């Protein structure tokens, strides 16, 4: 039977996580429908229809869906569920918010953060901050999955052949209401999909120094900026910059860790990067165990030197 992909988007555009989740879905089966739940979301639906391998795009528009609040969005997915034997979403904050609610309403055990499709009912997923990989088989008739997008290549953008079909969301009780989004604005690339990430840790010492040391190197490289939990907790960087077990999972071509010790919770979010560079004054710091290239030294000396030499 078919697969329903609950897409991540902001009405105006489709996030790259959706294309990556589609890459995963197509490994399970060929009949994949993409659900765009939103309001004024034609642009996102068209972007989804242009992805290679999509059968149909379902466009559900209503005011309560504008920000994909969990209650109406889960109700919508449950309404559509009968036609599918797999329902999946990228493991973004939206997918992680909505999909477990769907799973419980359908009495299904969700499989979170899938990193590999072994068979249509069997999946690999990291546990214990990525220190072990669990191979699980579902015994449920329907499977509900969130996909770790860093582990899958995005489906290609094709020629826009898939039809966009409107669906009517059934009325759902208004249990909660949207207030406002306070989004970080930045000209830099998005952290989760950037090709290069420059991350700073507690060693930066202040927000001013974080910005004075990390940002220029990131800008020279066209990189996104990341941070350790310690740097975020201390207010040096915004919460959405956190990389790790409980932050974002990234796998760029190049990850540069500056003044980050390499706690397991941080490694969980970046150790699948293709090339890792570590700069740390402590030659014994655990970050060096995963680094391809390490420099033992002071970040306040090394990082500006790199920036100047580029």
């Amino acid at each position, binding site marked *: 039977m078919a697969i329903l992909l609950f897409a991540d988007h902001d009405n105006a555009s489709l996030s790259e996580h959706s294309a990556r989740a589609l890459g995963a879905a197509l490994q399970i089966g060929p009949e994949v429908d993409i659900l765009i739940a939103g309001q004024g979301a034609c642009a996102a639906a068209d972007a989804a229809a242009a992805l290679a391998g999509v059968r149909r795009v379902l466009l559900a528009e209503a005011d309560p869906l504008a920000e994909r609040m969990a209650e109406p969005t889960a109700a919508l997915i449950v309404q559509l569920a009968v036609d599918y034997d797999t329902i999946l979403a990228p493991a973004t904050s939206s997918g992680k918010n*909505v999909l477990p*609610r769907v799973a419980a309403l359908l009495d299904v055990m969700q499989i979170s953060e899938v990193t590999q499709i072994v068979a249509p009912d069997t999946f690999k997923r990291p546990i214990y901050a990525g220190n072990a990989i669990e191979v699980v088989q579902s015994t449920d008739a329907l499977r509900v999955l969130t996909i770790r997008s860093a582990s899958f290549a995005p489906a290609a953008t094709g020629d826009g052949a898939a039809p966009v079909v409107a669906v009517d969301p059934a009325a759902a009780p208004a249990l909660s209401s949207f207030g406002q989004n306070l989004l*970080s604005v930045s000209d830099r690339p998005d952290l989760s999909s950037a090709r*290069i990430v420059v991350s700073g840790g507690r060693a930066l010492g202040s927000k001013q120094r974080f910005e004075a040391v990390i940002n220029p190197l990131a800008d020279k490289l066209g990189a996104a900026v990341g941070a350790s939990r310690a740097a975020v907790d201390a207010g040096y960087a915004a*919460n959405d910059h956190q990389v790790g077990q409980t932050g974002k999972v990234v796998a760029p071509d190049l990850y540069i860790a500056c003044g980050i010790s390499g706690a397991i919770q941080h490694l969980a979010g970046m150790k699948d990067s293709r090339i890792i560079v570590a700069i740390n004054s402590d030659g014994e710091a655990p970050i060096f165990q995963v680094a391809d290239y390490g420099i033992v030294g002071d970040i306040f000396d090394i990082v500006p030197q790199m920036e100047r030499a580029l």
Partner: protein
Amino acid sequence: MKILVPVKRVVDHNVKIRVKTDGSGVDLANAKMSMNPFDEIAVEQAVRMKEAGEATEVVVVSVGPAQAQEVLRTALAMGADRAILILADGRVEPLSVAKILQRVAQAEGAGMVILGKQAIDDDCNQTGQMLAALLGWSQATFASKIEMEGAHALVTREIDGGLQQIRVTLPAVVTADLRLNEPRYASLPNIMKAKKKPLVQQTPEDLGLPIAPRLTVLRVEEPVARASGIKVGSVAELLDKLKTEAAVI
């Protein structure tokens, strides 16, 4: 308003776990066990809300083995009033935990359930959302701030692009993110007092619930190790390697 806080006993976050060589699971023998760090944040939040007069009672509940009493006692020492242990050995999946919590929340007449956003052992990030679905309540996940407004709560959530504020109708399920608060350490007098606070035990069967897992764990593998790298002596050498050897810049 009564607040229910589910707390899970998990391997301590400082422990580096090992995968058993036969692939049957993770070796936790003699590993230090603690309260899931996110649940400490949830307990702290509930206790602060009681201290602020926004809650009348804080009830903590754990689903797990007899030793989960220890994490419940820790929660009591932090300021929770009462504890419930639902005795269950072995792997209990989030869907089953959510079903158990649904019964407990209904029996207790809770006005809010605050959970951790994620257990650091299974890394599922599901139980709160599932519980909200089963109860038919509103949900606010990944909370970094909770402000009470009569019949509603204004919750600030950590989302991918920054923060989001939503208003949930009570009763509601909230899951705690790292920035919600910094949990207190229990003082010695409070640890002593906690020993006398009520802790009752039940079983899933008492609640009329089967807890058979839906997922079969076929095996547990070691993650692929990275090949060991090198230390370079200068920035010039580093940039040269990144350009020629790794071809990433």
